[in-house]
């Protein structure tokens, strides 16, 4: 049922804007890009709400749009090879650089070094507690691919985190 309800949309926007922004920022590591992606996400939500058939899948749909905006930015910023390269790390910094006193800070730094396709699945499962099926729907990956990426990301991060535990 369609309703003329901009106040209610504003309520939903207020509820989800920080979560979408956080997701976009953690993927892009770029505040202006994350803000643009967040704005575009919610504007597209308003314009395309008719396409949402199941209100229960709104969260997955919202993050799919946000992800598309982020990847559009990443494509513009640089070319990014995805499948075929089993390496989990995007950049390679010496371990000694991480003089983080707190594990939280260390983990945040390590997360920025993961490749986007590994980072995004970990963000969705840890911060948003999404199911593997929802993550597969958002990322367009297969279920087994999502499982594999989450496992590999945990393994790689755990290996770097271990000396600090």
């Amino acid at each position, binding site marked *: 049922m369609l309703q*003329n309800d*901009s106040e209610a949309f*504003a309520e*939903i926007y207020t509820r989800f804007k920080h979560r979408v922004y*956080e997701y976009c920022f*953690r993927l892009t590591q770029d505040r202006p890009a994350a*803000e643009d992606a967040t704005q575009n996400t919610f504007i597209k939500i308003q314009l395309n709400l008719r396409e949402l058939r199941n209100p229960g899948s709104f969260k997955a749909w919202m993050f799919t749009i946000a992800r598309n905006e982020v990847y559009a930015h990443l494509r513009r910023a640089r070319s990014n090879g995805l499948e075929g390269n089993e390496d989990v790390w995007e950049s390679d910094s010496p371990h000694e650089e991480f003089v983080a006193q707190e594990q939280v800070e260390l983990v945040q730094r390590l997360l920025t070094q993961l490749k986007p396709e590994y980072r995004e699945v970990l963000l969705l499962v840890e911060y948003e507690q999404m199911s593997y099926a929802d993550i597969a729907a958002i990322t367009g990956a297969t279920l087994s691919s999502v499982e594999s990426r989450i496992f590999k990301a945990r393994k790689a991060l755990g290996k770097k985190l271990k000396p600090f535990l």
Partner: protein
Amino acid sequence: MEWQMNCEDYQQLVSKLLDNSLEKGKTADVFRHLGECDECRAFFGTSMHLRHAMQSAPPMQATESVDREVLGFTHSQPRVVSRVAGIRSSSTRMDRKASSVERSGIREQIRVFALVLITVIVSGLIWTRTLPKQREEGVDLTREALQSEMTIHQR
């Protein structure tokens, strides 16, 4: 020849276990292996530390400029078409800090409901079985009462 799982295989299962996505029937085997294997136990431990560290990070907030752009766009639309009522009701069920216990909460509720339903049905069946006996007893009591009254009248 039975395929033997190695630690890499078990750690993949541990990863799924952490996300409440492990297939039924495999949990016991995974926990048994964790009890025996230091390496896999270490993977489980560091994954839990990783989860704690990620979820302890301070939340990030969008600036007011995002509000101006989005809400400004909203108000500029002559008619915002939405299915907001359905989204609102479904979004109230979403909780950012939902734990794995909450994720399995619905399954647990269904189990409890099924148990209660079975108990009610069984109790109902037992009650209905005893009804004819009670009715007979009730009829017998009534007959006894009638007979005693008749006896009294005859006297």
